[in-house]
């Protein structure tokens, strides 16, 4: 571009000319028919032009930088695959991180993409519309680069090949699915708070920064490259989420209570969703970079704290769940791993007992809780395993009606008691894992009575593989779960003794000998 003119215009002016000047208020069709979703949630917007664009990328710049990122990324992926990079990871246990990640993350990135396409269509202002649409295509990027980076692992290891099929069927993937289904079925502004703000700004750092740093530390160049490259888009996404919150709060004081309720709700829902990420950090990475608790302190308490201190000028208060999450950071990863360890036959990744050195690391990182509550459980299980009786719980779990996770977390202030809550709605009893989930339910019961809970649906014959006659006289609900899930037999059972363990050792052996 002509420097003289470019200078005259400046980044902000030029960007305005390139985006919002393109838009107009429709007159042949009324604006509220063209954009029908922006009022029903109760958010009041008086002037869409007050939206501040944080990053000002025109499409040519976007294509330029994103193409450069993709060129680098796929070059590294190709090299990693050509050189059998999967054998350079620290330990075959690490690959289970990828199994859980592939099942839970790319499908949710895709939901984020679809959600941002919807919101990008529905927002009235050109500024937020363009930012949302850009985020939508970024989310396709994340979904696809994640699949592409793990595709080569699928050729050599169990438990990865049916992720697309399992995304809507696997019991332990239902929490993430319900999170995104919940957000996408809400209105456009709530979606922005749920995904743009609570997830992207407050929580996504926990998912990517220490976790991907952990992948690097464990020799997984492919996951590291994909993860960090995705994060380079995240910075843009975070600013969109934050801008949207500020915009709503600045537009009308009546928006505050609505926004605050959404912040409370979605920070809590996100926190629950992240328990399994914490579990990966504390238990599944053979070489650990920091504990979940430490990551939580840096990225949630400090960074989130700074954010909420800043937003206080609008009257926003820290999410209601904040104190409970601080208490829980000492517990949830242990409770999650224990929960998964107990189900070796019903998951698409392996679990195992932590080694003695790993138990010591956990004691050091969790001095207040680990030795007191969790070490004895693991030591007991190690003994059982030695005696040839690895623990295997075959009973159906109880699930929370809102977050869908197995009810397994403790009563606030009492780590020895599991927290149960219930609520009666139209004569039916519903169960919850916490006060926060119960409160979310009670605010919108008509929404949350719809939650698809596998353990309930199984009993009604709704979780059967194609071809099963549910009207047959000898039909027994839930007797074909392995086929319904398409669960690979090789991924069932403990990591110790698994096909992955044997193959990895044999292949490494090949690589170190002539």
């Amino acid at each position, binding site marked *: 571009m002509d420097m003289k003119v470019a200078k005259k215009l*400046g*980044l*902000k002016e030029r960007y305005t000319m390139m985006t919002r000047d393109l838009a107009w208020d429709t007159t042949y069709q009324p604006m509220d028919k063209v954009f029908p979703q922006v009022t029903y949630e109760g958010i009041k917007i008086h002037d869409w032009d007050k939206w501040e664009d*944080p*990053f*000002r*990328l025109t499409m040519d*710049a976007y294509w330029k*930088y994103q193409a*450069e*990122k993709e060129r680098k990324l796929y070059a590294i992926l190709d090299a990693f695959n050509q050189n059998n990079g999967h054998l350079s990871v620290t330990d075959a246990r690490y690959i289970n991180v990828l199994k859980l990640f592939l099942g839970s993350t790319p499908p949710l990135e895709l939901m984020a993409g679809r959600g941002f396409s919807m919101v990008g269509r529905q927002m009235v202002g050109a500024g937020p519309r363009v930012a949302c649409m850009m985020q939508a295509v970024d989310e396709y990027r994340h979904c696809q680069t994640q699949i592409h980076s793990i595709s080569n692992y699928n050729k050599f290891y169990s438990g990865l090949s049916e992720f697309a099929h399992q995304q809507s069927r696997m019991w332990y993937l239902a929490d993430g699915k319900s999170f995104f289904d919940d957000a996408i079925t809400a209105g456009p502004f709530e979606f922005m708070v749920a995904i743009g703000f609570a997830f992207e700004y407050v929580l996504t*750092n926990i998912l*990517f*920064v220490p976790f991907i*740093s*952990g992948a*690097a*530390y464990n020799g997984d160049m492919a996951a*590291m490259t994909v993860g*960090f490259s995705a*994060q*380079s888009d*995240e*910075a*843009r996404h*975070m*600013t969109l989420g*934050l801008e949207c919150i500020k915009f709503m709060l600045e537009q009308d004081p009546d928006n505050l209570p609505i926004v605050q309720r959404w912040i409370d709700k979605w920070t809590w829902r996100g926190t629950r969703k992240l328990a399994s990420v914490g579990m990966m950090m504390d238990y599944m990475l053979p070489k650990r*970079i920091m504990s979940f608790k430490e990551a939580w302190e840096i990225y949630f308490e*400090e*960074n989130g*704290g*700074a*954010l909420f*201190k*800043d937003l*206080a*000028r609008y009257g926003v208060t820290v999410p209601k769940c904040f104190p409970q999450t601080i208490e829980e950071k000492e517990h949830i990863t242990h409770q999650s791993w224990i929960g998964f360890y107990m189900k070796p036959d019903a998951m698409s990744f392996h679990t195992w007992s932590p080694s003695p050195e790993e138990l010591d690391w956990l004691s050091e990182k969790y001095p207040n809780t680990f030795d007191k509550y969790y070490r004895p459980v693991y030591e007991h299980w190690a003994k059982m395993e030695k005696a040839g009786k690895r623990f295997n719980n075959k009973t159906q779990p109880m699930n929370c009606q809102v977050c869908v996770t197995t009810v397994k977390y403790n009563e606030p202030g009492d780590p020895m008691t599991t927290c149960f809550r219930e609520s009666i709605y139209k004569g039916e009893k519903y169960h919850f894992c916490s006060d926060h989930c119960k409160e979310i339910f009670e605010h919108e019961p008509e929404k949350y009575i719809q939650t698809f809970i596998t353990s309930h649906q199984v009993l009604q014959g709704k979780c059967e593989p194609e071809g099963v006659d549910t009207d047959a006289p000898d039909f027994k609900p839930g007797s074909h779960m392995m086929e319904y899930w398409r669960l690979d037999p090789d991924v069932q059972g403990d990591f110790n003794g698994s096909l992955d363990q044997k193959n990895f050792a044999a292949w490494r052996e090949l690589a170190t000998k002539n």
Partner: protein
Amino acid sequence: MSNAFIAFQKNDETRCIVEAIVEDNPGAIVVDQPAMVKVDVPGKLVIRRSTVEEKMGREFDLQELQLHLITISGHLDETDDEFTLSWQG
């Protein structure tokens, strides 16, 4: 005062950017982690195009930061010459 921060993938370009941040932001704390580098500054973090250009010995468009960013914290303001992250309160 809350910290504003920025994190980059570690490479030769970001080495220059981090040097520029340290020079322009007294109180900057650099934290090294596997494959990434994070810089914290109390209150406000500024990246100046001119300083980065000096370190790199070439022209630099602040939008190139897009290529290396991992995460940020703080309200963002971006002009042709400065990239600023800040917290109030």
